[in-house]
């Protein structure tokens, strides 16, 4: 029995026990449901083994939404705890766990998959490709991410949550100060998900470099594809740093090395440095695809081409370069001396310049446009002013000497939420609404969507704007409570009210999905927004092979010019199409990774060794496997294309 004691939770509470029961019941309900409706075969064939980039995109999307819910519950608990002074809803330990899991879940397990959801679905379509370069690896990326997320999410019911913050600074995160297995969960689950992300980075870079439709030069790519390319380049260069950082942290915690310790020569600041060498590029990994989405949306709904295409591209590239040169601004106060601080202060402020250029480009795109205020456009227009506040406060934080006042206060919390929420969350909601009809064949209801937008927009500002003030007044971040005498009470209450507004906004989105699924028209054609890029030249729903005939591109907005100027898009005969086969190996291998991670978390060496061998066995299997894919015949394609407008269009 003693062996199993390790799985107990160190700080139990009724809420955690209730969650355990809830998780158990949900799992049972899902299993029974699948069996009752005889959906196991369907699930396996259509989803667990799929290598289709569109389905993988949808899998990412579902996971991201689930994680948004989990992170959102964490957020509400935090705001509820701090709503009034001296509150006892959560104790200090639980509060630590909640803000840690909130940060990790939102950044690694919500924002990242959301981005990859849209990149997966959209990028191959935008460049006129059949799939990504390595469909099998793409499935592996997703499942690794998913298993990493699941591993992280069981921590609070098996063994205890991580509690050292999403930044997990050593020595706090070391064995001396974090005695539960929580931080092991942090290290291993992010490691597993991170490897998946790195694979995606390689995959998408190769795809975008090599698989563009004939005629689509780099400078003719749609802006979202540009941002996807650069984002994935940052992934490829930043994620290995994370891999090593997590590896070294794991060595310290599980194998007793002294890399980040306070004794035997270890250096705790090294963790902070390595973490942010990955961490700052990571925030640009999050924001660049968002910029891409806004660029698409703004030009579609202003009904004119994007202003300053070249300067947009240039600023993305410059941002990606600078993103590696600013990491020290996260710990100006931690003793590197005035020279270093000054240098990093300057690079930090410099990054605001290309960002500003982009803002002006969007504004100028709208200037002479005929703007249609659809839901995606509302998010875009809402994003511009509040993201600017985020950027301006970023520059304030970037002044090293002033940062001594702001650092680790609620002011910082307000800053990064003012960048990440309009930057990432709004963009994802805009992108989701925008591409939803391509994904699912119907549109989300605009009226309900607008209600959701206003709740989120107002709720967001009510939640986070007060934090600028409490922060300047000295309210520290990550404190589970404060006394009445501080006077922080009313503004924190206001934040709580705002948070409820946000929650209502998200609930309305869920309702919108339900409502639109039931009532929305399925007869929307292929291009309901009158858009400009190639993904709208496919059928709705998109066929597994995407394009029956490869599009030929000779302008930035090939599809628009095809519609307006009658430029031919699809030439030649339909030929048979080569497609990759489905495979269960990525899923199985990722399941093994889950057990592998779990074994390491609890230092169970025998299963750890067995699963390590099993993982390599999967790779060996892949090496020996002969899998040449399959062909879709011309007759089959013609049959599915018969009622496609695209084809009819051409033969007119």
């Amino acid at each position, binding site marked *: 029995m003693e062996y199993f004691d390790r799985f107990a939770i160190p700080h139990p509470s009724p809420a955690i026990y209730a969650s355990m029961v809830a998780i158990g019941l949900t799992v049972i309900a899902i299993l029974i449901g699948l069996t009752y409706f005889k959906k196991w075969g369907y699930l396996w064939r259509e989803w667990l083994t799929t290598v289709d980039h569109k389905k993988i995109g949808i899998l990412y999307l579902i996971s991201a939404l689930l994680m948004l819910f989990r992170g959102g519950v964490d957020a509400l608990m935090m705001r509820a705890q701090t709503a009034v002074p001296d509150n006892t809803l959560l104790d200090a330990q639980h509060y630590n766990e909640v803000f840690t899991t909130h940060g990790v879940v939102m950044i690694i397990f919500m924002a990242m998959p959301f981005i990859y959801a849209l990149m997966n679905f959209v990028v191959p379509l935008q460049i006129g490709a059949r799939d990504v370069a390595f469909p099998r690896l793409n499935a592996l990326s997703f499942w690794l991410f998913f298993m990493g997320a699941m591993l992280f999410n069981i921590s609070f019911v098996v063994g205890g949550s991580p509690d050292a913050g999403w930044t997990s600074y050593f020595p706090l995160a070391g064995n001396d100060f974090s005695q539960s297995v929580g931080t092991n969960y942090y290290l291993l689950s992010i490691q597993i998900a991170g490897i998946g992300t790195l694979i995606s980075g390689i995959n998408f870079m190769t795809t975008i470099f090599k698989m563009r439709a004939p005629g689509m030069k780099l400078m003719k790519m749609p802006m979202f594809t540009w941002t996807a390319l650069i984002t994935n380049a940052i992934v490829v260069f930043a994620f290995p740093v994370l891999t090593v950082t997590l590896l070294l942290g794991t060595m310290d915690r599980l194998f007793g090395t002294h890399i980040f310790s306070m004794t035997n020569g270890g250096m705790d600041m090294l963790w902070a440095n390595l973490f942010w060498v990955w961490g700052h590029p990571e925030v640009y990994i999050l924001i660049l695809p968002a910029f891409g989405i806004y660029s698409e949306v703004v030009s579609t709904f202003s009904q004119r081409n994007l202003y300053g295409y070249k300067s947009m591209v240039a600023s993305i590239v410059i941002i990606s370069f600078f993103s590696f040169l600013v990491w020290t601004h996260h710990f100006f106060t931690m003793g590197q001396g005035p020279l270093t601080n000054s240098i990093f202060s300057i690079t930090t402020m410099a990054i605001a310049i290309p960002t500003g250029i982009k803002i002006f480009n969007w504004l100028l795109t709208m200037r002479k446009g005929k703007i249609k205020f659809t839901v995606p456009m509302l998010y875009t227009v809402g994003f511009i002013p509040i993201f600017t506040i985020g950027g301006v406060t970023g520059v304030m934080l970037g002044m090293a000497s002033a940062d001594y006042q702001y650092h680790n206060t609620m002011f910082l919390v307000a800053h990064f939420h003012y960048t990440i929420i309009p930057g990432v969350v709004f963009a994802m909601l805009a992108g989701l609404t925008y591409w939803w009809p391509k994904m699912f064949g119907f549109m989300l209801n605009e009226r309900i969507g607008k209600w959701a937008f206003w709740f989120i927009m107002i709720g967001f500002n009510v939640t986070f704007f007060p934090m600028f003030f409490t922060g300047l007044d000295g309210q520290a971040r990550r404190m589970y409570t404060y006394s009445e005498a501080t006077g922080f009470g009313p503004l924190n209450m206001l934040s709580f009210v705002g948070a409820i507004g946000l929650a209502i906004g998200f609930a309305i989105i869920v309702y919108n999905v339900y409502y639109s699924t039931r009532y929305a028209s399925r007869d929307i054609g292929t291009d309901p927004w009158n858009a400009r890029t190639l993904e709208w030249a496919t059928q709705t729903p998109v066929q597994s092979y995407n394009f029956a005939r490869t599009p030929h591109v000779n302008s930035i907005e090939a599809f628009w010019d095809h519609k307006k100027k009658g430029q031919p898009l699809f030439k030649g005969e339909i030929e048979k199409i080569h497609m990759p086969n489905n495979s269960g190996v990525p899923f199985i291998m990722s399941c093994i990774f889950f057990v592998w991670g779990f074994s390491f978390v609890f230092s169970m060496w025998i299963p750890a060794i067995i699963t390590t061998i099993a993982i390599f066995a999967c790779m060996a299997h892949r090496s*020996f496997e002969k899998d040449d894919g399959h062909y879709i015949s011309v007759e089959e394609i013609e049959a599915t294309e018969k009622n496609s407008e695209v084809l009819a269009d051409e033969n007119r």
Partner: protein
Amino acid sequence: MKIDNSLPLEYGTEQNKLNILGFWIFLGAEVMLFATLFATYFTLEHRIGNGPAGAEIFELTPVLIETLLLLTSSFTIGLGVHAMRIGKKNAMMTFFAITLLLGLAFLGVEIYEFTHYVHVGAGLQVSAFTGVLLTTLGTHGAHVTVGLFWGLFIILQVKKHGLTPATANKSFIFSLYWHFLDVVWIFIFSFIYLKGMM
């Protein structure tokens, strides 16, 4: 599958070209991985706590042997790829086999080296320096180990299927990997051992 005969076999199909580019990008990521390890190593190099310093534990002989073995193996795999390009299947397999044997010998010496470190009191848990030293060397060694299996699988496949676009592609990519490990080793040799011994 369309095969383009104007290009070397390993580049012959669309998928092959994708594989090679993808692998180069992967190597870019690997560069970052080792760069991070090196940066960590340089930061902690002199933080030896109560343990030994590099100069006290490094031994030139095994390190030279390792270097020699790995450099030679990089040469032989080059010969292997050349043999593949001119269609000599058996020569190619022989050179690949020699490469792997050299790699195996490298690994043997490295294992000896590790036991030596533990013996002289420079185990993993002694100091920041020993920890990062062994982690860095270990990461390279683990790459070599994976390479040994991978290379073996490729030889078996070439034996079975001959030199097809698929096997040629795998062999070529494997050679890139192997050369890369050699480059990393040259850095380890110069900036960990030589620098440490000076």
